[in-house]
C-alpha cells in the first residue's frame, strides 16, 4: 500500500489546490502516468504517479488546498492483497525531513543599555568605574557637554584624592585637639571566649558567611551604649545632643594611605551576621573609593582598630562633633590569672577617649568594663 502524495511543485511552492482526478478508484495506474491535476499560481499542473498498481482510495477532493507531501490517494502495488486501509490521520510528511539540522541562530550581541541623565562616552564610563569616580559630580567637555575619559582622568587627578583626604583628616584632628578636652582610659580584655565561640560558629558557616572578631567588638560597643548614652551623640553649639540611633563609625585604613570612617547605621539592632555583612561591604567599598558622601557624615561614635599589625594599645583622637572614640589594639598572647593560677589567654587592649565636657572617667571606666563583660558572653551579642 503506498500513499500518493502532493509532490513538491517547485522552489517557491508550499502548497497546491487540488483540481481533479483523471482516474477513479479501482483503475490501474502505471509509472509516469498523469492521474491528477493541481492548480498553482503559475497555472494548472498535471501530476504523474511513480508507483504502478491499482488506485485504492481517493483522499484529496477538488478545491482542497494541500501542502506539499500531503497524501492524496492510496495505491495498492501490483501483487498486494486489497486490505482495509484507514487513511492516516495527520499528513505524515516524513520525506521532507531530510533537510540538514538548522545552524544555531547567532546570538544577538547584548545591547548596551542607554544610561539616563548626562551623556557619558563609553570610554569615560569605563574609566570612571575603574577609578571609582562618581560620574554625577563631573562637568563634561565632550560633544553636547558629554563627559569624556579626559574629564574622568582630570577629576581623579586633581588634586590627588589622597592629598585632599590628608587635608580633611588633618583639619578634623586639629579642631578635635583644640576644642575637645580628651581624657583616656584603657582596659585589657580576655578574648578567648569570643575566639572559641567564633571557631565553632564559623565551622558551621560557608567561607563567605564567616564572622571576624572585629564584628563582635563592634556589637559589644553598640550594645553597651544603651546604658551609657552620654558617649553617643554630638557636641554642637556648646551643648551635647545625645543620638537616639547608634551609628558606629568604623575607621578603615586605605591602601594608598589615609583613613575614612563610614558608619554602620543602627549597629546595636543588627544581628551579628548582618553586622558582619555591613562591615565587609563598608571596608571593601571604602578601599575601592566607592563610598557615598552620606555614609561618611553621620557616625554618632567611632571605633578604630589596629588589627593584627600595629601596637598593643592606642589612644585615638575623637572625630568632632562626636564625643567619644573607642580603640582596640593588637590581640596578643598574655599570661592571665584564673582562680589563682596563671594560664595563657588571647588578650586585647581596649581604650576609650572621652570628651570631658560631656562625660568623665568614672562613667568611662564603667562603659569600658561593660564592653569587656559583654565580650565574655559572645553568644549573647
Amino acid at each position, binding site marked *: 500500500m503506498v500513499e500518493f502524495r502532493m509532490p513538491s511543485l517547485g522552489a517557491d511552492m508550499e502548497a497546491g489546490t487540488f483540481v481533479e482526478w483523471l482516474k477513479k478508484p479501482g483503475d490501474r495506474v502505471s509509472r509516469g502516468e498523469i492521474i491528477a491535476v493541481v492548480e498553482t499560481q503559475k497555472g494548472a499542473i498535471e501530476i504523474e504517479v511513480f508507483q504502478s498498481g491499482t488506485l485504492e482510495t481517493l483522499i484529496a477532493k477538488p478545491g482542497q488546498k494541500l501542502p506539499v507531501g500531503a497524501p492524496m490517494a492510496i495505491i495498492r502495488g501490483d501483487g498486494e492483497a486489497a486490505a482495509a486501509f484507514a487513511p492516516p490521520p495527520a499528513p505524515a510528511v516524513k520525506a521532507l525531513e531530510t533537510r540538514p539540522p538548522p545552524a544555531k541562530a547567532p546570538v544577538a550581541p547584548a545591547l548596551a543599555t542607554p544610561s539616563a541623565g548626562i551623556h557619558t562616552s563609553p570610554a569615560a564610563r569605563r574609566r570612571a568605574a575603574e577609578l571609582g569616580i562618581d560620574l554625577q559630580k563631573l562637568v563634561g567637555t565632550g560633544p553636547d557637554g558629554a563627559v569624556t575619559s579626559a574629564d574622568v582622568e582630570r577629576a581623579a587627578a586633581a588634586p590627588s584624592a589622597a592629598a585632599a583626604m590628608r587635608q580633611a583628616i588633618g583639619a578634623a584632628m586639629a579642631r578635635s585637639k583644640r576644642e575637645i578636652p580628651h581624657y583616656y582610659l584603657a582596659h585589657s580584655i580576655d578574648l578567648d571566649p569570643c575566639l572559641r565561640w567564633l*571557631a565553632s560558629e564559623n565551622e558551621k558557616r560557608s567561607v563567605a558567611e*564567616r564572622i*571576624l*572578631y572585629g564584628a563582635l567588638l563592634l556589637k559589644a560597643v553598640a550594645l553597651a551604649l544603651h546604658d551609657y548614652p552620654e558617649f553617643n551623640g554630638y557636641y554642637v553649639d556648646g551643648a551635647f545632643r545625645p543620638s537616639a540611633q547608634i551609628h558606629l563609625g568604623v575607621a578603615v585604613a586605605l591602601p594608598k594611605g589615609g583613613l575614612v570612617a563610614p558608619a554602620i547605621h543602627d549597629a546595636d539592632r543588627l544581628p551579628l551576621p548582618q553586622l558582619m555583612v555591613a562591615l*565587609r561591604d563598608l571596608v*571593601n567599598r571604602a578601599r575601592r573609593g566607592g563610598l557615598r558622601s552620606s555614609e561618611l557624615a553621620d557616625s554618632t561614635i567611632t571605633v578604630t582598630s589596629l588589627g593584627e*599589625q600595629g601596637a598593643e594599645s592606642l589612644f585615638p583622637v575623637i572625630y568632632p562633633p562626636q564625643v567619644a572614640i573607642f580603640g582596640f589594639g593588637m590581640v596578643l598572647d598574655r599570661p592571665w590569672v584564673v582562680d589563682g593560677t596563671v594560664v595563657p589567654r588571647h588578650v586585647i587592649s581596649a581604650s576609650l577617649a572621652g570628651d570631658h565636657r560631656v562625660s568623665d572617667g568614672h562613667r568611662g571606666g564603667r562603659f569600658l568594663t561593660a564592653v569587656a563583660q559583654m565580650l565574655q558572653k559572645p553568644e549573647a551579642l
Partner: protein
Amino acid sequence: MNEKELKATVLKALASVVPELDEAHLAPEKNFREQLDIDSMDFLNYVIALCAATKIEIPEADYRKIASVDGTVAYLAQHQKRSSAT
C-alpha cells in the same frame, strides 16, 4: 589544576585584595600578611576568592597554612589530591 595554574590562581586571589600587587617584590615562601600589610578583612576576602576559584572549602583552622603563596599552593595541591582520591 597543575602547580602552575594553582600559583596563578593564588596570585589572582591575592591581587583581588591588593590591587597594586607587585609579584616581583613578593617573597612567595614568606608570610604575605606582613609583606603586604593585610588585615583580617583582606585575608577573609582572599580566602573567599580562593574558595570560589578552587571550589575547596578552607576551614579557619587551616588559615595558618595559607599565609604564604607557596604555602597556599602546597595546601591546595595536597587538598586537591585528597578530594579527587575520595
